[in-house]
């Protein structure tokens, strides 16, 4: 690499006596694509925040743009051309694409006349530069996730970014969208702009990254060219233990296992068409497809939120109607939504309240009031059961890591003892260690006779845990595979081809 954009040496950071980072070195050259991986709590976020000037390091030195920095604030980071795209993309949903892109230079940076024409010119020039076509006048809030990401990247480029830091950029994207994003990043590289990817989805990023830095418990445990790692080595580096992939297939379903759920050519216009599905007790069925393929709406309809308009639903052989969430709950269906932050949890409320909310009416004492002791005990039991890492059950859920939050959502449903559990993206935003544990839990639940439907575009995860996998495209189930008949490669190809 010709020029060094960032060089950090011996960076350490303490928060009130807790070491978040210890002696971390990081060097990023111009036009380099660096991948920063690590589990939740490994120090990734702290490192980015130091890079962005939000946190001052407690030890170490860093040289940015050839200059040694002693005081380094967010505005210095921006001046040095370091742009951080946070997971929320920092967009204004009510402003247009063009306004979002040109915000810093044309709206917040100036006082006076606002020229929409000028804003559109700036935005379209940047979009042309990264070879992306977006409707400039569309509102950012109306865009799909991938386009919001692209708007955020374009906005960073307007400010002459030299290094773009993307925090978990692929979390909300489908496989094909990730490919589109990677193309853009490659284009930036050709222009000499560096990218720091922060991720825990490894495979998709590995193919374009120049070097990979692995953090674990606040220290750097590996730093090497990306092709020096295979997946297993990377996972071992991140977790400090070997987690096997592709071998943990669930126990086979007994041949005489009863059918819990049967969908008989159910349709809902605009969502899905003629879907047939059987789910036996003890079985885990995966549903995959691109965004908009109908996989998400099918998941919602299984939970009564988008009732099918035609076709029949049978539970335990009986025809039933799933017209509301109440119906679904009455049939003992549990649902772990795609976005746990907005749909699955009361973030500011305690772990206890979140766990007991589903069963709160069963926790009444003889006066009809909530039996506080029983509720607390239930929460404590589930926290222990699912090994949720927290000092107390009264802590707000928002203080937990992604993996632990997801376990709280699971605890909420499992405490109601469902016979069918539908999970949409069960491990999105969850680190590898927790992910393996959540998948283990699903296998165990299935082993005990629960029927489980997993909707995901994380192919390795589906292959890891499902007995059967359904592929959806344009609202139809186009293929069904038994786990043993399909490889990751084949499934990926099919998914992207659709």
């Amino acid at each position, binding site marked *: 690499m010709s020029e060094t954009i960032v060089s950090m040496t011996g960076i350490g950071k303490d928060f009130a006596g807790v070491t978040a980072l210890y002696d971390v070195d990081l060097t990023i050259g111009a036009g380099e694509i660096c991948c920063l991986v690590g589990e939740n709590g490994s120090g990734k976020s702290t490192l980015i925040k130091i890079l962005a000037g939000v946190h001052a390091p407690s030890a170490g030195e860093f040289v940015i743009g050839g200059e040694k920095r002693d005081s380094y604030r967010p505005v210095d980071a921006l001046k040095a051309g370091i742009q951080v795209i946070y997971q929320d993309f*920092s967009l204004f949903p*009510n402003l247009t694409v063009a306004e979002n892109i040109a915000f810093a230079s044309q709206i917040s940076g100036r006082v006076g006349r606002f020229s929409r024409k000028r804003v559109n010119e700036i935005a379209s020039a940047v979009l042309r530069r990264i070879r992306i076509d977006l409707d400039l006048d569309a509102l950012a809030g109306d865009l799909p996730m991938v386009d919001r990401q692209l708007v955020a990247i374009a906005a960073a480029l307007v400010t002459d970014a030299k290094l773009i830091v993307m925090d978990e950029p692929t979390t909300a994207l489908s496989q094909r*969208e990730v490919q589109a994003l990677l193309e853009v990043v490659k284009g930036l590289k050709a222009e000499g702009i560096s990218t720091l990817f922060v991720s825990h989805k490894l495979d998709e990023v590995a193919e374009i990254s120049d070097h990979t830095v692995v953090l674990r418990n606040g220290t750097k445990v590996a730093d090497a060219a990306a092709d020096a790692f295979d997946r297993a080595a990377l996972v071992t580096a991140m977790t400090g233990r070997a987690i096997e992939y592709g071998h943990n297939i669930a126990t086979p379903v007994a041949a005489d296992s009863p059918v819990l759920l049967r969908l008989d050519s159910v349709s809902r216009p*605009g969502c899905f068409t003629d879907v047939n599905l059987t789910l036996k007790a003890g079985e885990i069925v995966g549903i995959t497809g691109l965004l908009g393929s109908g996989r998400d709406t099918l998941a919602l309809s299984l939970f009564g939120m988008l009732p099918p308009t035609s076709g029949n639903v049978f539970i335990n052989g009986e025809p039933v109607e799933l017209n509301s969430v109440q119906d679904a709950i009455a049939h003992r269906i549990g649902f772990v939504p795609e976005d746990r932050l907005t749909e699955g949890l009361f973030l500011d409320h305690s772990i206890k309240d979140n766990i007991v909310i589903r069963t709160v009416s069963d926790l009444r004492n003889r006066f009809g009031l909530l039996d506080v002791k029983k509720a607390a005990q239930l929460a404590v039991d589930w926290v222990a059961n699912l090994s949720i890492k927290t000092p107390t059950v009264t802590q707000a859920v928002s203080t937990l890591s992604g993996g632990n939050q997801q376990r709280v959502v699971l605890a909420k449903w499992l405490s109601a003892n469902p016979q069918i559990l539908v999970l949409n993206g069960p491990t999105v935003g969850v680190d590898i260690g927790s992910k393996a544990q959540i998948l283990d839990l699903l296998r165990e639940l299935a082993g005990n006779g629960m029927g489980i439907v997993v909707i995901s575009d994380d192919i390795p995860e589906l292959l890891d845990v499902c007995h059967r996998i359904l592929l959806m495209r344009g609202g139809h189930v186009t293929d069904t595979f038994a786990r043993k008949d399909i490889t990751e490669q084949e499934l990926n190809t099919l998914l992207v081809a659709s």
Partner: protein
Amino acid sequence: MSAVTETAKPVTSARRRTAKRILRSNEFTIAVAIIVVSIVITAINPAFLSVSNIFDLLRLLTVTGILSLGVLLVMISGGVDVSFPAIANVSSFAAATMLLAAQFNGSGIVFYLIATPIGIALGLLNGFFVARFRVPTLIVTLGTSSLFYGAALFFLGGQSIFTLPAGTIEFSQASLITVPNPSGTGTTSLHPAVLILAVLAVLVWLLLNHTTLGRQIYALGGNPTVAERSGVNVHRVQYFIYATVGGLAAIGGVTYATLYRNANPVGLQGGELAVIAAVVLGGALITGGRGTVIGSLFGVLLIGIVQNSLVLVGLPATWQQVAVGIVLIIGTGVPALRALRQRRAANGGS
């Protein structure tokens, strides 16, 4: 998303997108509603479309229109202000008290010139609490509203002032155009105060759409955290908004006092919800980030028509509130339902 394959997209598709956006906009829906309601009322009683009735309606809606512009600004920024009627009353009443004490008898403009800075000062007080202490805007303005009314009664007394300056009286009787009544007796005139509303509306529209400050107000309502992170001086914007609302309220208050030839400390009290409702009906989001001048004015107009035309169609005036309630529920329910459908379609469509 797709990669650019050709350098230029056909212009027609951009035009079609724009046309679609207009058709789907709240302003368009409410304009249609105004037209439909007008047709229905005219069919029952053709007097509705008479020039004199329209002049009357405009006169009645001028003050609400002025006040709605302030409400709009606050709402776009993500706040709710319920103190504007208090500011309108108190600033105009204080100004009238001063003019009376000074035995002033000159131009009606002086009334405006004295009241407006008072309104701005009261608005700045709101801005101070909102910006410095980050108290929710509704709570701040509930508090200051009570404070302003109370202070006015204590310091200025509660006596209505009918002795307004000669210039103000003259302005209250001014007319842009005078037409004979359809009944043949008397005349109806278009009051020039409607021009004040028109000028203010254009100014606020310019502010919102053609200044960086205006876009910052939208940004603040869309995502306050990001606005701050992106370098918007949030405090300054908030001070500006609340000061402007105070100024607009004062202008509204003076106009009210002028039109009714009576300055009193409580005349507009209780009117805040109707104005807020009109602005919401016009497409502004109570959660901030969205709203337009034209939408708000349409909202004021639609509510005004429904409120003031029941008598024309032969319904007892006691039904006014019910009718306004129905308009509000339908007017805000339909767009909400449409948004929900769109969201669902976006979930399911490819």
